[in-house]
């Protein structure tokens, strides 16, 4: 007895271009797509342009110096050309970037920046163009994430009611028919209703999966929903194991982190549970003055060997400035503009230190038009991979977001203009609906909140800043075991409006799917490159591993293989030199 679509869906919303995610890439894609003669709908988990990492980025935006000077009129070095920018990106990405994407990225960066400035983005008056490490010239136009979001909102305001917004709506899955993406299903978190949105083209712009890790510098909504949705829709992933981490400490437990990279410059003592300066084992010459990745490796090894502190917040080591005289610390603090109470705390007490996830360099595989291998499915922003390779240059994240947002909006709108009306498979929708509401109906089972914390702890320890084969295999086994347990998740509270345990249950499903891909790709790549550190394969192997690791779900299993790099002529010249 099959039901009609209207019976299965609480609300049916027909549209042409559906965008999942509304900050950064999502907003830019919406602005672009709305310029065409298509209906645009934006679905977002929180409020429009207030849910995501772009708003809280204290940011610089990269473009090549010559264009910054010519197009935007800011003081920059004119000797810096697009070619130099391209080269810097390849060097930082250790040559496994998708060079076609990088080429288009450096072409468009300054144009998108100029648009943002036209829409009212203010530039920092003190230091308009900043020179960050890794760049050959001054390239980072300093602004704040807040200004970027305000500029994007002004861009969205130009279209007024033409774009439809669904706030507090969590996208669950992309629907497919005959191998083509035909729309999505979502849950309205305010009322608990089930929405079906048939669409001709779908753009995923949900940001990185930072909250999969226990400690993260990102926002709480980023639980890898976009990656999981793409995986279940059959999209490829490229180098998903590349994740950038940052050493941080707590400010106001149990929330609120602060990066300690600048503090590492004055060599604090890093101690384990026994009060030993454990860096003696990992870098006996330079101890705490070692490079950032060696410090990260040191911290993680201590945690693995159970020599770190471990409590309900997670596992960490201790950092202390007690060996330095007070006035030295005060003088240094003045140059850094930390708050008084933070510095007092640092001088008096030991603070925890750990590596928090910061940015996802790998993700859904796209080409230079933001198309995935599924027709009708596009992706833009941090959720995609291939742009940055193994490591991201400082300031390139916002550039990626505005540049790729435009490509995705353009490509999706052009596709939607020519595509046929989407046909939905009602059985598929019904299956998803049953899975979504199951935790609400179950009377007893496992708690989703506890499961989420376990996943976060496991991801931090086993698939974290440094990896080893035994732990990765252990993590994959644990993920598979949790997946078996997943149907037993229930919510203790049965209300339908903003049921936080229910949201946790939906997010946990996505976190497991995404984490499995990351862990398997990390296991597959048997070398260390950029921010992927394998303790058992510590060397970078340019003979065998100048390739990309591709992952894809087929019949419920994740298949992994390596593919040769996507190169351009110019890129090959640089790589060979």
């Amino acid at each position, binding site marked *: 007895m099959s039901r009609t679509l209207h019976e299965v869906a609480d609300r049916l919303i027909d549209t042409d271009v559906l965008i999942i995610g509304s900050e950064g890439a999502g907003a830019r894609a919406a602005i672009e797509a709305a310029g065409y003669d298509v209906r645009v709908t934006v679905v977002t988990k929180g409020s429009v342009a207030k849910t995501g990492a772009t708003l809280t980025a204290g940011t610089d935006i990269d473009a090549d110096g010559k264009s910054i000077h010519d197009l935007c009129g800011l003081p920059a070095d004119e000797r810096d050309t697009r070619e130099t920018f391209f080269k810097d990106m390849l060097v930082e990405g250790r040559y496994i970037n998708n060079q076609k994407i990088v080429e288009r990225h450096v072409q468009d960066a300054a144009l998108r920046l100029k648009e943002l400035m036209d829409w*009212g983005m203010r530039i920092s008056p003190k230091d308009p163009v900043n020179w960050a490490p890794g760049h050959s010239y001054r390239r980072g136009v300093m602004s704040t994430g807040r200004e970027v979001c*305000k500029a994007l909102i002004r861009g969205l305001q130009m279209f007024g009611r033409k774009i439809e917004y669904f706030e507090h709506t969590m996208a669950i899955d992309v629907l497919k028919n005959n191998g083509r993406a035909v729309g999505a299903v979502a849950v309205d978190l305010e009322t608990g209703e089930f929405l079906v949105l048939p669409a001709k083209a779908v753009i995923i712009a949900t940001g990185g999966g930072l909250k999969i890790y226990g400690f993260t510098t990102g926002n709480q909504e980023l639980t890898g929903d976009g990656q999981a949705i793409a995986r279940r829709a059959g999209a490829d992933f490229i180098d998903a194991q590349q994740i950038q981490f940052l050493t941080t400490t707590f400010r106001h437990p149990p929330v609120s982190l602060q990066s300690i990279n600048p503090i590492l410059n004055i060599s604090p003592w890093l101690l384990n549970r026994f009060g030993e300066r454990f860096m003696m084992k990992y870098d006996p010459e330079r101890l705490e003055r070692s490079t950032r990745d060696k410090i990260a490796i040191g911290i993680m090894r201590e945690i693995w060997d159970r020599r770190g502190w471990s409590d309900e917040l997670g596992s960490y080591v201790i950092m202390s400035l007690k060996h330095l005289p007070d006035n030295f610390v005060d003088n240094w603090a003045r140059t850094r503009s930390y708050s008084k109470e933070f510095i007092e705390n640092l001088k008096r007490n030991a603070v925890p230190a750990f590596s928090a996830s910061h940015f996802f360099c790998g993700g859904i595989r796209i080409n230079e038009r933001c198309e995935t291998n599924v027709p009708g499915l596009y992706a833009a922003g941090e959720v995609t991979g291939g742009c940055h390779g193994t490591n991201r240059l400082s300031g390139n994240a916002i550039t990626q977001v505005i540049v790729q947002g435009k490509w995705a909006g353009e490509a999706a709108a052009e596709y939607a203009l020519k595509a046929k009306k989407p046909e939905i498979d009602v059985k598929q929708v019904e299956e998803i609906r049953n899975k979504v509401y199951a935790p609400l109906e179950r009377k007893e089972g496992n708690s989703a909140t506890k499961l989420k914390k376990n996943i976060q702890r496991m991801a931090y320890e086993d698939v974290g800043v440094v990896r080893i084969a035994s732990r990765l295999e252990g993590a994959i086994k644990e993920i598979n075991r949790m997946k078996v347990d997943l149907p037993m998740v229930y919510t203790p509270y049965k209300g339908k409006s903003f049921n936080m345990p229910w949201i946790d249950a939906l997010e946990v499903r996505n976190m497991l799917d995404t984490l499995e891909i990351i862990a398997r790709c990390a296991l597959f790549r048997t070398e260390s490159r950029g921010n992927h550190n394998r303790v058992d394969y510590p060397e970078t192997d340019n003979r065998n591993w100048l390739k990309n690791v591709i992952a894809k779900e087929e019949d419920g299993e994740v298949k992994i293989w390596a593919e040769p790099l996507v190169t351009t002529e110019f890129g090959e010249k640089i790589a060979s030199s």
Partner: protein
Amino acid sequence: MKWQFVVCDPSKCVGCEICELACSISKEKSLNNLYSRIHTVHLENVGEPISSMSITCHHCKDPVCVKVCPREALSQDERTGVITVNTDFEAKQSCHVPCGWCMASCEFGALILNPKFSMAAVCDLCPDDRVDGEPPCVRACPKDALSLATTDEVVKKTESKTSKDILEEHEKAREDSKTFYEKFGYMPMPPTKVIKKK
């Protein structure tokens, strides 16, 4: 020494809205009422105009806008009573992607949302644009209804009884510090049974 602000005499005001244009030209160099920090309100009864008045920041004693801002971006100068909005580029306590709480809680409608920068803005008595001590809106008023003064001074000068009463009511509201809804009896949480939106 009481705080001065731009006061309007309702018996003289004709509702021409020239003060709004003067404010927007002076502050934002554009002829757009949305940028103006002073609003003209028109009271009508079935299409028949009854009265008009221009309202701007009344420099309340214990301002609600300052209390309500979640980031403490608003502050009041003790000497003049002028409210300043912190619009610094990166400061912690600056107006953000706006929440609009100050705008919604001010019953006089004194705080506006500047459309260009998406931040709150309020009358600051134009310290840089005075001619004979008068800000642009006061100069522009063709009926001399506006003056930079305290309410008492304007009450003494006006001859209409209605104006006296209205101005005295406003003065009372300035001294009081209850919020809009507490005074006019609105419950801000109508149980919006959000079942079927739109």
